[in-house]
């Protein structure tokens, strides 16, 4: 190379931004999604998000099957929230068809739903530790998580995709002779909670990597309609279980957990996300305990015979909405039933990651490229839940700015050309 070509004087270097694409298949991502980062040195100055790789057309498929078949499909929207979607879906259909759910079934749904939150939050904490390069903590957390998987398997027969809710009730009981297994698991978690809090929240290196990283302010969280732990970490007291109680939550006093419960000011950073999720594990343990102690007696399904159930659903018509506070935030299912057909007339799913997607933009902006994996993980994204065909403007601010820039450039050019 000619020496002259690199003979740049100090300050002569043009301010350049680089674009670094990440994904759709990338070791830091467990699921396909693509980010495109504009970098100024190490700092992220722009981000574009392109989801859609995991879109399978579930709503479309569901509208071509009978309702019970669609129920199994709803479990496969997401293998981590494999009861959250059926819970919202069954409630939506029951709401549309005017079907009652016996109290015992409501409590059992709640128990399994909260167990899912326990395993999902621990899963997230482990993945978070892995993204920080703290694999010991990943293995510790996932080992601890197995206890909830064991209990889920014991109660439902499956580690994942539990097939518990069905329209008008639940498919399996939580029998009295299995209650001791549940109590044993809950005691196990209670005894470990302090250890987990110490490992995550009182660890210097975790704190240094997560404090003030990927922050989302209270106002941004409200403005961007963030949900679940992502919103609560910013201090927004929002939780479907508190705001619109359903199932057994109506009998309890559930409060949205924010970092204030840990005694710190909410900053909405990754550290606060850890606080909220760990404290929610504790909250879930309390809820499961309450449900086990107060489990009402009675039947499991108000229409126990499947042919009768299908017939009742076929006769029904109308619209229904089901909401559930999934581990990642509020999930909503909307359905419309038409009389005389077995299939759904309309099925619309809004998964929590869909709401939290926009929160990524302010979280990324201004942080370093090395923080990308942990910030991406901080909202606990679930692509398979939310990937859809019609994309919203995922780039948020950036596109708008780009448009302004283009308009400005275009005007300048006009002026230049016209002298």
């Amino acid at each position, binding site marked *: 190379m000619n020496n002259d070509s690199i003979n740049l004087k100090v300050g002569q270097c043009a301010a350049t931004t680089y674009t670094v694409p990440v994904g*759709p298949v990338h*070791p830091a991502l467990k699921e396909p999604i693509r980010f495109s980062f504009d970098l100024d040195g190490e700092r992220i100055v722009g981000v574009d998000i392109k989801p859609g790789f995991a879109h399978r057309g579930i709503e479309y498929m569901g509208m071509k099957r009978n309702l019970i078949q669609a129920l199994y499909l709803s479990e496969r929207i997401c293998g981590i929230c494999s009861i959250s979607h059926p819970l919202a879906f069954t409630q939506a259909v029951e709401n549309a068809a005017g079907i009652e759910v016996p109290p015992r079934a409501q409590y059992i749904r709640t128990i399994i739903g909260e167990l899912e939150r326990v395993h999902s939050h621990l899963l997230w904490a482990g993945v978070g530790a892995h993204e920080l390069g703290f694999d010991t903590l990943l293995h510790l957390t996932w080992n601890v998580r197995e206890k909830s998987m064991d209990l889920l398997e014991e109660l439902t027969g499956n580690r994942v995709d539990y097939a518990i809710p069905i329209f008008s009730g639940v498919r399996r009981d939580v029998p009295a002779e299995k209650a001791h297994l549940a109590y044993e698991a809950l005691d196990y978690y209670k005894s470990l909670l302090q250890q987990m809090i110490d490992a995550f929240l009182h660890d210097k290196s975790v704190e240094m990597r997560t404090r003030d990283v990927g922050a989302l302010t209270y106002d941004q969280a409200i403005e961007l309609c963030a949900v679940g732990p992502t919103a609560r970490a910013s201090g927004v007291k929002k939780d479907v279980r508190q705001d619109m109680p359903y199932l057994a939550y109506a009998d309890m006093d559930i409060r949205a957990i924010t970092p204030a419960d840990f005694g710190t000011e909410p900053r909405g950073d990754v550290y606060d996300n850890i606080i909220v999720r760990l404290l929610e594990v504790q909250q879930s343990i309390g809820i499961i305990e309450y449900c086990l102690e107060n489990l009402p007696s009675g039947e499991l399904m108000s229409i126990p015979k499947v042919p009768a159930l299908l017939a009742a659903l076929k006769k029904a018509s109308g619209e229904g909405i089901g909401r559930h506070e999934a581990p990642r935030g509020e999930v909503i299912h909307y359905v419309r039933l038409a009389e005389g057909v077995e299939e759904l007339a309309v099925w619309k799913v809004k998964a929590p990651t869909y709401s939290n997607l926009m929160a990524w933009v302010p979280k990324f902006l201004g942080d370093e490229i090395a923080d990308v994996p942990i910030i991406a993980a901080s909202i606990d994204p679930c692509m398979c839940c939310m990937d859809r065909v019609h994309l919203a403007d995922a780039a948020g601010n950036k596109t708008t700015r780009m448009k302004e820039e283009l308009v400005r450039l275009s005007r300048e050019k006009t002026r230049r050309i016209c002298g």
Partner: protein
Amino acid sequence: MALPRSFKRALWVFHVATGSCNGCDIEIVAALTPRYDVERFGIMLTGTPRHADVLLITGPVTKPMLPRLKRIYEQTPDPKAVVVVGGCGSTSGVFYESYNVVGPIDEVIPVDVYVPGCPSRPEAIIDGVVKAVAKLETLEKSRGGE
């Protein structure tokens, strides 16, 4: 009993999700963590297909993932084995009749081992990878390598 040849070296695995529901993917991670701990058999997750002996693939292959999956398969050096984890990757499973699904995986790339289940249990996933070892050994023998 003499140890099979496969235990003489580590097997590197690359994981691709082609639109799966996450159920199988999480069970793959569970297989890597202490309860199942596949690393004790020398099975290790790698960050790039270029270092992989085995591809662990989940999902029904959505349209946007189709070219990516093909490319990842081409990037994996020979000899390689492909293990499909889960019902939806093996047969489309619950995701039949969709406008955005082009799988199952064996319509896109050659598959050596199918692991059943929706999701597959971690034990089944380990079994699938071990079966892939047998295939790798025959491939290596036919190439005359040690």
